[in-house]
């Protein structure tokens, strides 16, 4: 088993591959992360995403186009709970630079900015409604994990962990998931996993605790009783979308929806409870 870790997309990336001498594959997977970060990061002025947000339209490359398509489809599927047009809301909340540079405390946050803005795709041209800007942070990591898994899989069964968004190819992979009072291990085979929560990217503004998971309907940090939710799905993009959507649903509704849809989920609440749903219990 070979392992490599590095930083990209504001988080730690971990590559695991069941092979020896897989340096080329590991190099290719790492390059893929850096390449996609240069296209999809809102913190890089020269990224395609930043150009789109600045100009309001762009003739997009295939990756930006695909991620935006996935994000809009996710918005449709989740009834708006997942929404890429939360850029201005998350900036207003204080997350206006890479998280390492966000001050832990500061003056009051800006007024919440509800999302739901219009994004139009025509061929490879993406156009944003006036005043709309998009953030592809969460879904971008899931997408990058899946894209990086492709070259890595040429060396053998592999796992790509992009700050908690996990894609796998072949093999079976035991993954540790923090619960309310410990850890449990989920073994993934032919599946992916993502965790969303408000226990890491948090900060204070005007005495209020804020976090990066924005409720698109209000434009403010989501007032959910969930601390953290881990979802298993067919791919890391789906898992990320479902994790975000179920987080916003709140603990009990998330369990109900996950059970109804057969989506395996580990839901950790602010009260310390842990619910296993979607067939995991």
């Amino acid at each position, binding site marked *: 088993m070979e392992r490599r870790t590095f930083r990209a997309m504001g988080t730690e990336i971990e590559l695991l591959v069941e092979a020896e001498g897989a340096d080329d594959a590991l190099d290719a997977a790492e390059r893929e992360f850096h390449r996609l970060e240069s296209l999809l990061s809102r913190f890089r002025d020269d990224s395609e995403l930043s150009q789109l947000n600045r100009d309001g339209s762009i003739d997009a490359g295939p990756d930006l186009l695909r991620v935006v398509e996935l994000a809009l489809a996710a918005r449709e599927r989740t*009834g708006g709970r997942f929404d890429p047009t939360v850029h201005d809301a998350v900036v207003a909340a204080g997350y206006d630079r890479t998280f390492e540079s966000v001050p832990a405390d500061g003056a009051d946050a800006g007024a919440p900015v509800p999302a739901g803005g219009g994004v139009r795709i025509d061929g490879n041209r993406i156009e944003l409604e006036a005043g709309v800007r998009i953030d592809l942070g969460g879904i971008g990591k899931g997408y990058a994990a899946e894209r990086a898994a492709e070259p890595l899989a040429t060396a053998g069964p592999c*796992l790509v962990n992009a700050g908690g968004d996990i894609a796998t190819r072949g093999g079976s992979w035991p993954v540790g998931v923090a619960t309310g009072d410990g850890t449990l291990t989920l073994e993934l085979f032919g599946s992916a996993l993502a965790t969303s929560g408000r226990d890491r990217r948090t900060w204070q503004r005007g005495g209020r605790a804020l976090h990066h998971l924005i409720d698109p309907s209000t434009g403010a940090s989501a007032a959910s009783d969930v601390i953290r939710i881990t979802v298993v799905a067919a791919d890391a993009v789906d898992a990320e979308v479902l994790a975000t959507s179920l987080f916003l649903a709140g603990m009990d509704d998330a369990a109900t929806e996950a059970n109804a849809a*057969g989506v395996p989920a580990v839901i950790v609440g602010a009260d310390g409870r842990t619910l296993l749903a979607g067939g995991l219990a």
Partner: protein
Amino acid sequence: MGTNHVGRLYSVALALVVFFLAWAVVAARPWSTSAADPRLKVLAAREAQLRREAQLVNRVVAHRWTAYRAALHARQAEIATAKARSSQRAASYAVAPSAGVRIVTLPPLTITRTS
């Protein structure tokens, strides 16, 4: 010389007719205005007021009923939309192929955490 007895008879008859007519006219007293019973006036005014209030109340009730029905329909539509959205979400989640996962007691090779 005597008067014509027929003429006398006609005169008497005419006199009687005139008498009774005069009596009827006097009995009718069209020149006099009868003083209305003040209680009747009050009752009539009260009845008119009650009729006006009843009409006003009916208008207010009709207006509120219309507003309530509109609000009820709107709320029912909201509920139906929310239910449909929830069903759509659950259905869309289930579209993805079921993911392979199970809980094991093996030591993890990696961990997931909030990113």
